[in-house]
């Protein structure tokens, strides 16, 4: 038997996933809705395999008491792993019910079918359904994974653009953890340690009390608790905490170039042979620190009651967070329940875990009182983990035709994977805070973090890379949509255009000469056709067309992006085209939404975004300091979803990020007749490249 998908291997019991009662199907999963539409796509998979209507599903996602442990909702794996697991669970449950019905009806299971939960025999109702049989069918058993799911041709719900389950409630003014109100709930805010390691010297407790609030404190952890949000804000302002010491940062640390001067843990992978002699080309690319910049600040509610600490949060992983909180609080994980609740858009490891730990600590200090923590906008910018700055340097040896026969890469990066016990902000301020071990991050090519997508998808006989992992970033960094693939694909796909130029070849033809995967070739050809590539024109006219391709993690979703820009001392997006291959798209419109969103977010980062740094760390603390792309700056975006329904479903949430960044750089370089290698591609960068 082939191995079960990880989520099912980790949660074998069928009744962990499914229950049938009162004409409803209770589906419990660990992969959570973070704005990517996963709750809808997974529901389609469940309804499809069970042969029930979507309207019968009651959905529970991310709950340490009631739902399976699927780890974190990350890395574009929720369909590939979570969906594959749920599909097997539902197929097996359906088969068990059919077998029981067949026994009762003295029929063969082959004679039976299911329509919206009712058992049919030769198309006629039998009087049996999931709910009438539920008492007879034991789901408290381990899945075998041996029941084959439906063939593609039988799909009626999978493959359709089913509307999102969560949008109506959100538009009706409910649905976010921010909107939760518990009886007696109080509002709280932590007075944040301004620099790592700083010690709290004093604060104005009398002023906090005059403002109508109270203070809770444990070591250097101090929080203001108030009856309303408005009182909380004035009390937090009145607190005037004084801190001493702590690690200072400096403005020059905001640049990727500074990171490259720092001590690093160097790991090498790939070909151990030295690069051969021959004509070479080398170039270095970078991106700065970038912010998740979610539209709503992080929020959580926590309530210590009846010996249980109950937490509602928009974390990506309720079980990993519970383990982290249990370690920090020194209590049994079984005494903590973490329930996922909707939050503003999540693009990776943002402030959600920190806000949840804030609320948890305050709740344990004030047992019986539900505590709501909502970060300020300034705190969200300043204290949520950032996407790390990176520098990727490439060196190729070329054959007589200008094709790369050997490629060496050097990646300099802070950490992209920075979860785990003791690493959350509040944990660093508690009296029992332990010294942190250095960050652990694999340098393997798959799935990769800083090294993600550094191995080209092209046919290059020998490749190797060195990963310089820098622990001493000036600000806390962790996973942000695409991780290292954004910078690595930006570098590789910019480099491909440079190599094509040196070879005197068209960039599309040059890529196709190195791509053997037929799906990748179709995608590049399709994108080029959409963008009318043959009419591209010469370089340096102020109008440019650029293209870039990657397969995310070299195993997941394929995306090719083409961009037309106008450029002088600034870059204006004029049109974007994207062809993508998701394999079997569970929800084609949901895939398109993810592609569009990734393109726009990547375009914003590529053109505009960089976190500024001063002595107190992140200095960009408002939207005025950290502009993102607005409506009037976003061009028409045409998406073509390739039809590959017989191929396995691929995760699509992150696959456009790197190709978009590189396509913009390639288009701008074509327009300007000069190469831009450092994000963001601002006026200053253009002037510097031209000088």
């Amino acid at each position, binding site marked *: 038997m082939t191995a079960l998908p990880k989520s099912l291997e980790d949660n074998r019991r069928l009744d962990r996933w499914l229950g049938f009662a009162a004409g409803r199907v209770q589906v419990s999963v660990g992969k959570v809705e973070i704005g990517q539409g996963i709750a809808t796509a997974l529901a389609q998979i469940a309804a499809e395999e069970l042969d029930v209507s979507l309207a019968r599903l009651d959905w529970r996602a991310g709950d340490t008491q009631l739902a399976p442990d699927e780890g974190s909702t990350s890395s574009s794996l929720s369909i590939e792993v979570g969906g594959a697991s749920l599909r097997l669970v539902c197929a097996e449950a359906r088969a068990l019910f059919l077998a029981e019905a067949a026994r009762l009806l003295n029929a063969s299971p082959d004679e039976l079918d299911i329509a919206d939960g009712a058992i049919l025999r030769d198309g006629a109702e039998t009087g049996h359904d999931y709910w009438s049989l539920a008492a007879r069918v034991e789901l408290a058993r381990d899945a075998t994974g041996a029941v084959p799911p439906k063939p593609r041709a039988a799909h009626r719900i999978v493959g359709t653009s089913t509307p999102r389950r969560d949008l109506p409630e959100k538009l*009706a003014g409910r649905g976010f953890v921010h909107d939760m109100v518990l009886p007696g709930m109080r509002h709280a805010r932590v007075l944040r340690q301004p620099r790592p390691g700083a010690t709290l010297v004093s604060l104005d407790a009398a002023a906090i009390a005059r403002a109508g609030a109270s203070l809770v404190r444990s070591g250097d952890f101090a929080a203001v608790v108030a009856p309303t949000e408005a009182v909380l804000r004035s009390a937090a302002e009145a607190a005037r905490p004084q801190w001493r010491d702590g690690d200072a940062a400096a403005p020059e640390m905001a640049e990727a170039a500074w990171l490259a001067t720092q001590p690093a843990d160097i790991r090498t992978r790939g070909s151990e042979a030295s690069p051969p002699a021959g004509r070479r080309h080398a170039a270095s690319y970078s991106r700065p620190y970038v912010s998740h910049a979610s539209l709503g600040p992080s929020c959580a509610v926590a309530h210590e009651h009846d010996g249980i600490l109950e937490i509602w949060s928009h974390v990506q992983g309720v079980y990993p967070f519970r383990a982290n909180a249990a370690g920090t609080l020194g209590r049994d994980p079984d005494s903590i329940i973490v329930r996922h609740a909707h939050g503003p858009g999540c693009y990776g490891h943002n402030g959600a875990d920190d806000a949840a730990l804030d609320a948890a600590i305050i709740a344990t200090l004030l047992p019986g009182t539900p505590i709501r923590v909502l970060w300020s906008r300034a705190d969200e910018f300043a204290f949520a983990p950032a996407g790390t700055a990176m520098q990727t340097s490439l060196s190729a040896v070329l054959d007589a035709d200008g094709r790369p026969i050997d490629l060496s890469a050097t990646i300099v990066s802070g950490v992209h994977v920075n979860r785990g016990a003791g690493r959350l902000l509040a944990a660093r301020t508690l009296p029992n805070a332990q010294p942190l071990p250095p960050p652990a991050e694999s340098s393997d090519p798959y799935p990769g973090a800083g090294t993600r997508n550094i191995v080209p998808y092209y046919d290059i006989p020998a490749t190797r890379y060195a990963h310089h992992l820098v622990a001493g970033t000036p600000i806390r960094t962790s996973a942000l949509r695409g991780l290292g693939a954004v910078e690595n694909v930006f570098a590789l796909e910019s480099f491909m255009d440079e190599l094509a130029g040196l070879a005197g070849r068209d960039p599309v033809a040059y890529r196709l000469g190195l791509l053997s995967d037929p799906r990748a070739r179709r995608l590049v050809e399709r994108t080029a056709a959409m963008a009318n590539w043959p009419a591209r024109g010469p370089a340096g006219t102020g109008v440019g067309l650029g293209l870039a391709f990657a397969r995310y993690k070299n195993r997941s979703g394929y995306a090719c992006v083409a961009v037309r820009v106008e450029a002088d001392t600034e870059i204006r997006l004029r049109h974007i085209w994207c062809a993508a291959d998701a394999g079997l798209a569970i929800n084609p419109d949901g895939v398109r939404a993810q592609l569009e969103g990734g393109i726009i977010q990547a375009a914003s980062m590529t053109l505009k975004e960089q976190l500024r740094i001063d002595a107190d760390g992140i200095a960009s603390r408002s939207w005025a300091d950290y502009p993102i792309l607005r409506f009037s700056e976003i061009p028409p975006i045409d998406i073509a979803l390739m039809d590959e329904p017989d191929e396995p479903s691929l995760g699509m949430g992150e696959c456009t990020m790197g190709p978009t960044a590189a396509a913009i750089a390639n288009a701008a370089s074509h327009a300007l007749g000069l190469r831009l290698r450092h994000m963001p591609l601002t006026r200053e960068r253009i002037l510097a490249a031209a000088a």
Partner: protein
Amino acid sequence: MTSLTVNGTVRTSVSPPATPLLDVLRGEFGLTGTRFGCGEEQCGACLVLIDGAPAQACGREIATLEGRAVTTVEGLAGHGIIAALIAEQAGQCGYCLSGMAVAAAALLARNPTPGRAEIAQALDPQLCRCGAHPRILRAVERAARDMAAGGTGR
């Protein structure tokens, strides 16, 4: 105390006069559709209509609203823009959508047939981080069409 009309109903706030309207709506009146995004009038998540004109609720003190009429996203429940946003699946996380709906309703009230550039201009102060912009633009166009056809607008 401040008396104002919220979504057609007269409400009285007992919050201190300097309390932002956003806190009154969410905390005192339980109308959580108006979202807190920044508290600095920079993102548009808390956009409401005050006597029909768009305003960011985080920047308006409750005492300045005596006798005024406030419309929140809850007050747009039957408005064509809500159905259009759902029809176009114009949200990813959905956190910005209340403000988008209010901004669009204000635009459509003064210009029932806006072109795409006019829509983008009207929505430009409204931030979205998920990249739902193309769908939101299409939703406003759809709402305009539906309302012109005598549909669900008002």
